[in-house]
């Protein structure tokens, strides 16, 4: 099984990855082998087994509705590539 060029490019677009044209073939094969590995799971008969939504069998972890200390703004902004004193800056959207 191999992924089509369109499938590779669409996956790249959804992940916002810039793929060089000469690499499409390589990713097509690599992705196919990952998916092939997952295919193996389809060989198991899961009739009557509820889908697993979580790896551990715990439920209901809650937090009470009480506020904590906030992160100081300069810390919140410290990793941002573009910022001003109030917040994050991004290329103009709209």
């Amino acid at each position, binding site marked *: 099984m191999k992924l089509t060029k369109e499938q590779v490019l669409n996956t790249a677009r*959804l992940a*916002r990855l810039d793929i060089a044209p000469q690499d499409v073939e390589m990713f097509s094969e690599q992705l196919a082998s990952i998916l092939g590995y997952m295919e193996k799971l389809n060989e198991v008969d899961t009739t009557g087994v509820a889908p697993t*939504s*979580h*790896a*551990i069998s*715990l*439920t*209901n*972890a*809650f*937090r*009470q*509705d*009480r*506020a*904590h200390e*906030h*992160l100081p*703004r300069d810390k*919140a*902004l410290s990793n941002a590539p*573009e910022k*001003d004193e*109030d*917040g*994050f*800056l*991004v*290329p*103009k*959207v*709209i």
Partner: protein
Amino acid sequence: MEFEPVIGLEVHAQLNTSTKIFCACSTRFGAEPNTHVCPVCLGMPGSLPVLNKKVVEYTLRMALATNCDIPPQSRFARKNYFYPDLPKGYQISQYELPIAINGHLDIDMQDGSSKRIGITRIHMEEDAGKLIHDGSLPVSHVDLNRTGVPLMEIVSEPDLRSAAEAGVYLRNLRAIIRWIGIGDGNMEEGSFRCDANISIRPKGSDTFGTRTETKNLNSFKNVEKAIRYEIARQTEILLDTGQVVQETRLWNPGKGVTESMRSKEQAHDYRYFPDPDLLPLVIEKKWISAVQKDLPELPSQRRERFVTEMAIPDYDAGVLTSSRELADYYESCLKTFNQPKHVSNWIMGSLLGLLNAEGKSIEDCPIAPKDLAQLLKLLDEGAISGKIAKTVFEEMSSTGKPPKQIVEEKGLVQVSDTSIIEKEIDAVIAANPNEVERYKDGQKKLIGFFVGQVMRATKGKANPKMVNELLMKKLGT
């Protein structure tokens, strides 16, 4: 050919918890940008979300108030897309297993008809941040205070058939949200938002036409306007034997039109999957009954009780239960003065008139319920006349003083003493011999003139009924 519109609404309502849905940051509106943030809502690697229990409780309240089924298990999913207001690159929402399904809401139309609107599902999710577009620089400012604020999405069945029905449904939802105390339902401030799915089909058809989704509906008026516009636009296309394009459209309130935003081909591919950071949510029957027990009597139930217990018309009961505060006000009045229809008349007429004129809601009402009831009691006992009652009411609204004090201070007690009234009548008769002559000649309408004269002489304080009776007796009928 005659067409009928098919409308379904998706409503996002902010829940008024103190903290965000998955972290303990404050949800308070109006803070300095990016000061109500932490590693969780900033989407920092390694941080983990923990569900706010109150968000679940509030959503359960809504689910019960809208007659939903609550499945034993629900879970959170990631909705993946890139946008600068979404730091994690996904929104935590619910997809396959929402907290509530299969509900309904009965709406009353103005013509007296009633209609049941199905509710497909209610789910919990987190809000995104806010983008502020710079006027002069090629940048947008990102404020992440709103990121992670809890939202409840309520999806209706495509049961609505007109803009008016959509408007009534939406107002009812909002009233319930406020009534059960889980949100403020403020459309202008964005704590109550609505998207409309609209399609057109030949009347009587049981298949659906191609639908559009209209966004940016930021007031009740705009929702109805946008729906009317979209119905007209689609009808025109179909009459021209054209095809409606499945797309997302944006309401432009300035121009009063909807405009294409993105087509089906450009539609997002959200790749939902269960969020491994959050445990499945199990709602036990015990929890549901506890929420049910704490739920206040709902608007429709209270309206019914007002009609049966207090024997007031359904119309009155509808007005009085338009908000919980108004219904409480009404019932408070009845504790002091238990004449339900009399009190209802005054609240619907004078009191709501006053509040509307001053743009106030019942919460800011300057007249305490026991004072309004006291006023009606004075009127009922004959201590003051209807005219004086109006004067006292106005004085109460501007000063907030209790009615008895106003009546005493201004000397407004009604005069019901026969001898005093007779004295005034004798004076009026003596002063107006011509009118007396004409009255006796058959001009009976002049009785109004005499009553007016006596009332003026007593500064409006004479009991009008007694004045009338005594005048008739003196003048001869």
